[in-house]
């Protein structure tokens, strides 16, 4: 225990830590999500990853979040299916929202972070901790918000970027935004392609069957009818084709195709003390899994969700605010050549929230939510929090009950789907403290999560697997963030760091959850001189266990990865041009996040970003 405490302290104070995490002050730019995120969650921490950070990154969404947050991702090989363990929870316990609408797969319950075109978004907000009252199922470990911004009265802005890297990796992304007094438009598209055939260091072979290709297209538009009424429409299309990298050279080759189509219409009505947002969304997902290439043999599934939601925000007084939410969601899904029969799920949810600001620096908030469905027993949820703000110190304390519902596969797959499943539920408490003094920021979150009824597929006596509510888990964890900046003459220097410690303990076996590292740490130095910058970074991921008993022989070793990013800005009269060179895994470290699935060694990427 002493050792652990010392390690924590040492990590926080001795190691100047990580990464270009631009915390936060830009919330006002998030037009549509502003209300829910900033007004109603004053007692929870937010991390905003802004557009310049998004623009200048290359690689997958997993790479981006792995490097810039404390969230740990396990990847089935580079570019393959990627799932998070946010605050030591499971993949289904992280909710991903697209402009406020949940987009976790209805079939699998999780988002695949290597099948998300993150460059389409103007900002990505990470909200650690429980948020089920606001965001529904899956908001247990935390929520990740993918947001598009719309701006009125804006001249045409274009951004075009190319990247090329090792393993014949190519990417293109284009985005245009413009607006008039009453209209605002964004359009964007992109593609990414890679042979992904890197050398398996020391194994005398290449990564086989790892190629991937994806395209995305999206647009957003807003029309301001008058001062009170605004309509916004969001549309997004994503298609990919990913081969699954082989573990052994003659392994059966497989691939996966994903198609996602999302449309969302919002109507905002506001007057002085009242805001109403009505949303209607259609979310379609489908996948096909080719189980023995090169044959056409495949199976798959699809789900379409129709959602209507009405959110009202009412300021009773300057310090007393209420909001309510009514939501109806219908999801239909079925398999193709697979054992998922047609199923139709209806969920109706209602929630009520209130906040009271006692003084300029102190207030509290609370929320209640209940849900009715034909598919599982409805949970009753709550949240409550207090906050304190002063110039150099901020405190946020939040407690909540959260859940994640059984997925379509959990409920309906034949055989093995179980209609008697309960949702996984969690109770949690979260204390967040922020210290800032001049150019120094230090943030510490400590949390406790108690989870029960975890859903797990287990073999039955008759030979098939069945979904069951089995495990209970206790998570004790902490996250730390440190940042210091200095500017002088033409120089800019920044140190930053992230550290997360999670003890996710299965209550029955008293062992750490599999694929959940106890320690993850990242640190970054950024030095800039005029238009040039160099940024070395280091990420450490602790040992993970692959067996529930935490047997040492099946544990995957901890690893540390060093990247170096260089950037040269070439400003011209008509456009800004950036050339980014990224050297990844410069020490050529061999590592895996899944057994026997090796990750890339030293590799590079060149990126050209133009704005005009």
């Amino acid at each position, binding site marked *: 225990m002493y050792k652990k405490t010392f390690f924590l302290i040492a990590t926080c104070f001795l190691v100047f830590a990580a990464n270009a995490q631009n915390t936060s002050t830009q919330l006002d730019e998030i037009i549509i999500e502003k209300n829910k995120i900033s007004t109603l969650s004053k007692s929870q921490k937010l991390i905003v990853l802004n557009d310049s950070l998004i623009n200048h990154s290359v690689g997958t969404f997993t790479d981006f979040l792995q490097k810039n947050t404390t969230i740990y991702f396990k990847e089935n090989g580079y570019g393959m299916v990627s799932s998070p363990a946010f605050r030591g929870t499971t993949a289904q316990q992280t909710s991903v929202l697209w402009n406020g609408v949940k987009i976790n797969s209805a079939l699998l319950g999780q988002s695949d972070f290597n099948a998300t075109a993150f460059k389409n978004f103007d900002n990505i907000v990470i909200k650690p901790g429980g948020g089920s009252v606001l965001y529904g199922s899956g908001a247990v470990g935390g929520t990740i918000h993918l947001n598009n911004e719309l701006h009125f009265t804006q001249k045409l802005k274009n951004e075009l970027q190319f990247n090329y890297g090792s393993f014949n990796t190519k990417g293109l992304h284009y985005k245009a935004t413009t607006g008039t007094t009453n209209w605002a438009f964004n359009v964007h598209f992109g593609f990414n392609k890679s042979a992904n055939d890197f050398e398996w260091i020391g194994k005398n072979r290449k990564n086989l069957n790892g190629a991937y290709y994806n395209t995305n297209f999206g647009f957003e538009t807003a029309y301001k009818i008058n001062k009170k009424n605004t309509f916004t429409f969001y549309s997004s299309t994503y298609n990919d084709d990913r081969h699954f990298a082989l*573990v052994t050279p003659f392994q059966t080759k497989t691939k996966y195709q994903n198609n996602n189509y999302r449309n969302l219409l919002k109507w905002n009505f506001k007057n002085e003390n009242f805001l109403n947002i009505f949303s209607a969304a259609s979310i379609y997902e489908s996948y096909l899994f080719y189980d023995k290439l090169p044959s056409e043999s495949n199976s798959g599934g699809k789900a379409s969700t129709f959602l209507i939601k009405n959110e009202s925000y009412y300021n009773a007084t300057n310090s007393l605010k209420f909001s309510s939410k009514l939501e109806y969601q219908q999801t239909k899904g079925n398999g193709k050549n697979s054992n998922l029969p047609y199923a139709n799920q209806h969920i109706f949810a209602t929630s009520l929230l209130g906040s009271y600001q006692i003084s300029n620096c102190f207030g509290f908030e609370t929320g209640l939510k209940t849900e009715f469905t034909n598919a599982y027993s409805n949970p009753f949820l709550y949240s409550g929090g207090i906050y304190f703000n002063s110039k150099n110190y901020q405190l946020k304390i939040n407690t909540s009950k959260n859940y994640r519902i059984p997925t379509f596969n959990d409920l309906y797959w034949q055989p093995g789907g179980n209609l008697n499943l309960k949702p996984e539920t969690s109770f949690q408490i979260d204390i967040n403290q922020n210290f800032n003094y001049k150019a120094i920021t230090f943030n510490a979150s400590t949390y406790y999560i108690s989870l029960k009824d975890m859903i797990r597929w287990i073999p039955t006596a008759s030979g098939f697997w069945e979904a069951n509510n089995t495990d209970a888990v206790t998570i004790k964890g902490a996250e730390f963030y440190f940042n210091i900046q200095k500017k002088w003459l033409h120089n800019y220097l920044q140190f930053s760091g992230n550290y997360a410690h999670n003890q996710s303990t299965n209550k029955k076996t008293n062992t750490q959850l599999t694929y959940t590292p106890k320690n993850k740490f990242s640190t970054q130095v950024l030095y800039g001189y005029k238009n040039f910058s160099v940024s070395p970074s280091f990420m450490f991921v602790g040992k993970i266990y692959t067996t529930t008993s935490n047997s040492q022989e099946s544990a995957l070793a901890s690893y540390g990865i060093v990247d170096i990013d260089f950037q040269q800005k070439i400003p011209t009269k008509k456009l800004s041009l950036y050339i980014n060179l990224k050297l990844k895994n410069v020490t050529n470290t061999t590592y895996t996040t899944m057994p026997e699935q090796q990750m890339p060694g030293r590799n590079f990427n060149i990126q050209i970003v133009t704005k005009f």
Partner: protein
Amino acid sequence: MKKILFSVLAGAFFFSCSNTNDDLPVNTDEKYLDGIFVSNEGNFTKGNATSSFINGNLSTITNDIFKLSNGRSLGDVSQHMVVTDKYVFIIMNNSNTIEVVNKKTFKLVYTITQNVSSPRFATVKNNKLYVTSLFNAEVNVYNTDTFAFIKTINLNHTAEQIVATDNYIYAANGFYSGGTTLEVINPETDTNTTDVNINQAINNIATNGQNVFVLSANDTTSSISIVSNNSVLTTKVLNQPIARNLVSYTNYLYYTAGTGVYKINNDLTTESSKLFNVADGDEYSIFYGFNVINGSIFTADAKGFADNSKIVIYKENGTIINEFNAGIGTNGFYKF
């Protein structure tokens, strides 16, 4: 932790024993001279299959012996093993390989890849290895000395388990999926001419060298049929649903149902008797591996494939001889 330490130390002790015994060959690589090979299938697509070895007096286990001898991992899904005089053929389902290792050293001799398509089970007859395929309705035949591919025998259905008797080779059409056909292969011509129909879905087959015993089951009853040459001799209906494993040993058949281990005369003229219930360990996936070797009953609880399997070896009266932790998904025990 203690257990792991124990087995590591025990393993080390065992090596030193066999190396200092004057009766044994001087080849220090020959670590496996008498005992039981264990197949641990691993998690599908994770490539964490392993092989284990339990020594002859059932006192120690050595895990991951393929890596110990060859310095690399075994591969993806170790489905089955065939042990011959010289070699162990390890049928690697999703790796699409058959790893041939020297029986005494477990050193890799050859990797068969030609015409290997999601192999499931294998048997040896007349110096030929017969291998079933998950995807293709065929049995592929290899020479057990040169490992050369000989031919493909076409079947009417895909087959899983395969056994050889004195006269024929029998390949059973799919388990747990409604397969009801036993395909009969003539080893002289290596052709499939006759099929034997079983009236319920086949769960398992076993042989005593003369006859084939077929365990079939549905949700309410289980049956054992005796197949001789090309026809069903007799069928006995058991009073248990979903019996799963079937082993022929001496003049008896052993099978499992629920948590019980049962025994019945192999002429099926008597009723079966329950030997014992396994101690209630993990409630799921018990009897994933099951065999009766030299009178000892080997069981493996696959622990839901989320943890290392637990092997428990019993005497017929239910007394526990020994317990070990093996690899992920222990699915088979094979006599040296």
